[in-house]
């Protein structure tokens, strides 16, 4: 079994665990934890997609040289994407936490079931 398969499975499992936490836990903080796990899972997935077996990091240092680069490196594009994704994930998590804080301030509860004034 190759590395990428294992990490692919890991990423899927991580996402599912995160999703389960997101959907099942009543505690708002833990919902956010679930979300960030889900997010991490997607990051691993993206990096894995870019991975090619036995290739090196996409940095053209002396070890790689400037010739036949395409035979030597892993795909740099997913890595570039994941950088963006990570920052976005941070932003979303931070904002969710700010919301959680505000909600807690208003009702002194972290149970998401207590925020149902709007419905139907």
């Amino acid at each position, binding site marked *: 079994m190759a590395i990428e398969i294992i990490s692919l499975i890991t990423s899927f499992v991580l996402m599912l665990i995160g*999703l389960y936490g997101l959907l099942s836990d*009543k505690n708002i903080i833990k919902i956010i934890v679930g979300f960030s796990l889900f997010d991490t899972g997607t990051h691993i997935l993206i990096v894995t997609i870019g991975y090619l077996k036995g290739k090196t990091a996409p940095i053209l240092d002396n070890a790689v040289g400037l010739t036949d680069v395409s035979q030597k490196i892993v795909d740099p594009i997913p890595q570039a994407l994941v950088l*963006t994704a990570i920052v976005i994930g941070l932003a979303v998590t931070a904002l969710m936490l700010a919301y959680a804080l505000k909600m807690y301030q*208003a009702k002194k509860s972290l149970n998401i079931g207590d925020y*149902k004034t709007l*419905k139907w």
Partner: protein
Amino acid sequence: MDLISPIYIIAVSLGTGFFMGMPGKNLQRISFYLLMAVLLFNTAVSLQWLYALANQLTGPMQVFTAGFQPPFSINLLMGLNEAVITSMVNIAGLLGAVYMYSVLKKIGTGGQVVYLILLISLNVIVLSRDIFNIFVFLEVGSIATAGLIIFQKGIKAVSAGFKYMLASGVIAGLLLIGIIFIYRFTGSLNIDTIIQENPVFKQGALISVFLILISVILELKPFPANGWALDVYQASHPGFSAILSSVIGTANLYVLYKFSGLASETLFYYLSLIGLVTFVGSNLLGMNQDNARRLLGYSSVGQIGLLVAVLGLIPQANSNFKIIFFGLLISHYFAKAGLFWISGIVKKSGLKSWSALRKKPVLLFLFISFILALTGFPPFPSFFGKWQLVLELSAQGNIAAIIAILVGSFFEVVYLLRWAGYAIKLEPVSTLKIKWVKLIPVLLFGVGLYGAGYFVSQAIPYGNTINFIPLAIVAVLLLLDFLPAYIKNIISISATAWFAYLLFPDAGTLKIIFIVIFLVGGILTLIPGFYMKGKREGFYPSAMLMFGGLAQLIEAENLLQFFFAWEIMTIGSYFLIIRGKKSMIHAFSYMLFSVGGAYLILLAFGLVSMGNTGIGLELLSQIKYYPGIAMALLAVGFMTKTASLGLHIWLPGAHGEAESDVSPMVSAILLKAGVFGLILIMLAAGGEQNNYQWLFYTLGWIGALTALVGNLGAIFQEDAKRLLAYSSIGQLGYILFAFSMMSHMGWLTGFTYTINHFMFKAILFLAIGAIVLKLKTHNMYEMGGLIKKMPFSFIAVLIGIITLAGIPPLSGFGGKWLFYNAVILKGWYFQGAIVFFAGTIAFLYCFKLIYSIFLGQLKDNHRNVTEVSFWFLLPQYILIIGVMVFSARPDIILKPLGATLSNIFPAEQLTWNGTTALSKLGYWDATTIFMVIGIMFVILFGWLWFMSRKAQPVKQFNMVYSAERPERPELTHLSHNIYAGYNKALGFLVAPGITAFWSYATNFFESAGNFIRRIYSGNGQSYAIHVVIYTVVVFIIYLSTI
């Protein structure tokens, strides 16, 4: 032409945004104006592109970032579509900022920056051709959205924001997975390159395409995975809800549009399914809402669903795709933003508190315009969009989709028009203070909506055949609404006369009859308006809308014109009817039946156009697919207007509670529009030997039963106007029956009835209306003995009821005689007997009407009443002259009519020998009868008068009752429930079974909606669960097909 590159929208805005982050008090002060300046700049840039591209001054522009060709770098495309959408985004952004002036000021630069960036992100997702770039800016947008939600203070907004973030977090995750896999399978992130790669053939790619599309769809809030969005609509600042609904929805929809290039046929199918489910489902639930913003939320979701369905249903290569898509989109855009903005002005959330708008006519007008635009009435873009959509779907043979769309639309009409009714009718509980900054955007969007309507109408096929002059007259009357009523009345009458003058020369005999009924009748019923004091705000525009629609109906030469006119007339009459004191609920039910009928007509028109080219009215006679169903649908549609049995329950209230001069308009004139429609389809069906025998046979029975039930209903009424209203139901039943016979005699009967009903019902309603106006009660048992006070009204009513009852020598008998002959020749004996029975029953209510009001004992409080206004009597007596002429010389009309009809129905014609009409069975000499009876009557009257010339009048109180003098003789006026015995015997026939049926149907849908909406438990986590379930379910269904 040198155009500013769209990249500057982003560069300038972001630069300014970053600059606004600078610390400093001075900056705080000017930052709002800075924001406005940037938004103005963006608007200008996108508008210049729109102008240039629309006029083909330049081609679409590609912007390559970083100076590399795609797919190696991110590129933006500014084409016509993009120009339209970014213009929409930026204009609404600009006006939204104006609207949100105070809140943006209060929140400070931080808030302004977020607002600005939201708009930028929307611009980018519209322009960008790179899939991951779109993802990034979608995220920017959703974070900014989350920030803007909390402009509104309070836990509601905060919790709504959190729900939103949770759901959009999951959705973003799905999108990201989809994107990375599409990269994996196609090796590109550029939409155009991916489409070239054609991912359809690779299964893994199919799944990633699925993920991408489903997440964009989820962003568009499909039913039922959209609880989070509804909370946001309800809880946010109205200014932001407007942006969310009209702009963010639009931009996201455009993303779906771009991505839909990736999809396969199957996915398009699902797209349409999802859209339709959303449209129907959310509108079903919308019916249960009483919070204005949440209701608008449901409506928004529904509208976007419809647009998604359009994406799925209509191939983008179709030449009409754009007009459908943008027609619907633009209506939604203007209307929804406008409504949310108004909701911020009204402030209170309950639907009923919107009556506050009543005191602000401009705002009320805008509100109603927006509502009508959402519900797809002309002249708004959505009308044309929906029209074309139905035609295209018919061309595809996709009837199920049409039905779903119409059902959803109907639900939407239910709650939106109920709401409009509240605003128009309920007593205002609060007064509004309107700030100019909040009014300006609404006003501009209102103007934009009408402009867009005209533009779209010119763009669709055959749209240029629509005559907008009646609407222009309505607009003039709206602008002149501040003038006193009599001036507007003169204008209206002249305009109606002018329509008639224009239509007259080209019309054949059949049309002339309707011109006379619609327009001459219109003039006659407008005359009483001179009596009305004050300004009568809103009356004349509505009336002219109705008469304009009727005029257009006559001149219509294609299906579009016809339907347009039909809808115009419907709205006009709705506004007329709702003017009555207690008519809110009745006008509403009138509208529901009318709209339901109109949708059936639309569906039928769709069927008619199937497989045919063009949309001329002559297609009705060459229907290729499902001709029977199409005809039946049309018939039922028209029968909602003629209030045939089962569809009649709206009429008594609507006609009974309308204003005194409106009742004759709607009863004597408007009902004939339905007759006009029926005649149209019957003509198209061909003559006697048509293929729709079963249909007309059924219609005949319906007509007969309608006549019976209508007349029976009338005799038990205590309310004079309702009595007449029920009588109209019955009379229209006769008319339907007569035309359904599809024979020469039958049609002559039908036309005679139509003309008679027009005349006597106008006389009766005018007379009774004037009396009601004078006595301020509808109840007949509160009247009595008025013959001495109102002799002219009495004579008018007497002549009216003699005509109605068909007693010789007046023209009513002509109808009866023709009827007998027609029935026996046709062989519809039993139906005929029922109709005859109904006719004798008519006699009962005629008597009740005239007796209870005019005869018997005068009431104490009416001792000082005087004759009704001259302006009411004038049209009555003009009509009486008409009745007399038609009675003495029916041949004037019937001869040429017969000649025309002989082309259609050559068999068993009526022949004329001088003034004697000869049928196959019998003969009838109206002129002689008129003379014989007249002479005899005069002789006998003279004799009796001579014999009792010394008679002395008796005072009212000079009476003996069971050997005693009653203390208060006026109380002995027997007028309440005078047909008690009849009620005991036959009352069961008018038991409100049909009303019960309709209220059961209503309850069913309401409780279904109530049941379904329990899934919106308010729990943010549940909403996230819905999103996942939705994805999984759609996926599993999808998986089974690939």
